[in-house]
């Protein structure tokens, strides 16, 4: 455990070096959120709607802000990191250390996202509290948030193993982002879709970390809803962990340590 905490610490230290990078990322995200907010404002005003689906204008704005802030911590960076390490052959230096590749990657991911995760947790806590949720709801919501975070990490870790078979991972970036934006419900709440589509989409990993999580944090659901999704998320974690180990084992057999 100590070794992974140290990796996390080193990653935080590295992260603090790139002050400009952090500021630009933050500014970009704020602009992205504002754009989506203005689009929805325009839709509500131009059509003189009070409600779209179950969403009032204020509900919608809160949903959009939370869903998009979540996308800062649910990032695809670990996907491309492994691909880069494989392509450059630098994975070799990691394989030579008595560490588990998955845990190392998680420690680095946490280290690189510690600021965002902290801000998101504080925001989530205040959001739930402000809506007068009881302590049990807060507890379930935080458990779900933790599970969603782990599941998303497992999901990107599975995707990252594709790097063993393809030379460049970057073409995947735009595809993954598009899938996340649509299936995660970052542009619009997924429950505006017809029910059959919603039922299927809502149990997918991207919807869980986007739409479902945002619904939970805006206190639009019951405790049983959270528990149901906790179970779904747990099943995803186990399944993805199993797939990851298979792919990693196959990938390592293919890995030749070539590259500069």
């Amino acid at each position: 455990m100590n070794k992974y905490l140290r990796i996390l610490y080193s990653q935080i230290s590295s992260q603090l070096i790139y002050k400009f990078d952090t500021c630009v990322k933050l500014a970009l995200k704020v602009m992205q959120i504002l754009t989506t907010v203005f689009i929805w404002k325009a839709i509500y005003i131009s059509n003189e709607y009070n409600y779209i689906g179950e969403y009032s204008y204020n509900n919608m704005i809160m949903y959009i802000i939370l869903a998009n802030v979540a996308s800062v911590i649910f990032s695809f960076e670990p996907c491309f990191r492994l691909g880069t390490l494989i392509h450059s052959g630098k994975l070799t230096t990691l394989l030579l250390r008595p560490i588990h590749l998955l845990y190392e990657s998680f420690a680095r991911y946490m280290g690189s996202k510690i600021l965002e995760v902290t801000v998101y947790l504080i925001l989530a806590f205040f959001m739930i509290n402000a809506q007068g949720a009881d302590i049990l709801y807060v507890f379930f919501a935080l458990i779900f948030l933790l599970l969603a975070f782990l599941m998303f990490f497992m999901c990107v870790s599975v995707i990252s193993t594709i790097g063993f078979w393809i030379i460049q991972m970057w073409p995947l970036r735009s595809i993954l982002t598009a899938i996340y934006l649509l299936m995660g419900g970052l542009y619009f709440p997924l429950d505006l879709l017809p029910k059959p589509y919603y039922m299927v989409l809502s149990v997918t990993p991207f919807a869980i970390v986007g739409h479902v999580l945002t619904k939970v944090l805006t206190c639009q659901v019951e405790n049983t809803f959270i528990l149901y999704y906790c179970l779904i998320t747990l099943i995803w974690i186990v399944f993805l962990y199993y797939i990851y180990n298979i792919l990693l084992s196959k990938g390592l057999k293919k890995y030749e340590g070539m590259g500069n």
Partner: protein
Amino acid sequence: MIECKNVSYKYETFEKKAGLKGSILDFGKREKKEVTALDDINLSIVEGDIIGILGPNGAGKTTLIKLLTGIIKPQQGTIDSLGCNPFSKTPNYLSQIGVVLGQKTQLIWDLPAFETLKMLQAIYNVSNASFSVRLKYLTEKLQIADKLFIPVRKLSLGERIKFELVCSVIHSPKVLFLDEPTIGVDIVSQYAIYDFLHELNSKEKTTIILTSHYMNDIEKMANRIAVIIKGKIVKESTIDEIRKEYSTQNCYIIETKENKIPFDAKAYRIERIESCKYKLYLNEDSENILNNVNISNIVSIREEVPKLEEIIFKMFTQENQ
């Protein structure tokens, strides 16, 4: 300690014809090709050995290091290293080896080397007391103690290589693998590295397995060499034995003050190498006593011992032919 038996390794590559047509054809169907990197390698390394692995580019040296460290798995044969199968990458095995890959850094680029070393301390579970003592010894020995808190990206290449070495031995490994450890390093740093590795080998009985294109590295450090050419070990011996084998028998170099032979040369074959320098071939069947020697004209007489570089060049050329 390390035993390779009938180890073979092949990898897949592809060929692409030149030009646009070649690129289009390659896009449709790639012409795959299997290349034998190592073929039936048998090698034994005992504790405390310093073995140099030599070979031309693409001979299979780095592949052998990758196999021994467990990065890749042999397709044929077995490797037993410290009682483990390297490819299983057990924490026990990985904790007993140290690796320097000259072209792949393990230092965290933006942070001082001290941060990487603290991380390695945690990874290898080195106690605080041992870490402090060892770090002090290593950095002082390699003359980089004052560079510990400077970001890695601000260090010179030589300093970075020295820190790579410190990283690879901070946990006192039993076996140290060095792949091109002095690549791009100046002569002063090279000698500091040689000295450091010798001390490590003699004090801690660390087994060192080294590959390098610099013959000087091998000559200064290794007590045994294995020459790999086209994936096969063509020679495995001590440097002295190889020198003996390849030395020109009964041949002496004589340097003189004046430009004339300083003895009665009728009975010998003499070759003038340059002004005031001669090569004398002794007769195998005679007593080989020089007559009428003019001592005052002699600067030196020494047996001709070929340089390791020349021997290896000869080997590479012969094998390629």
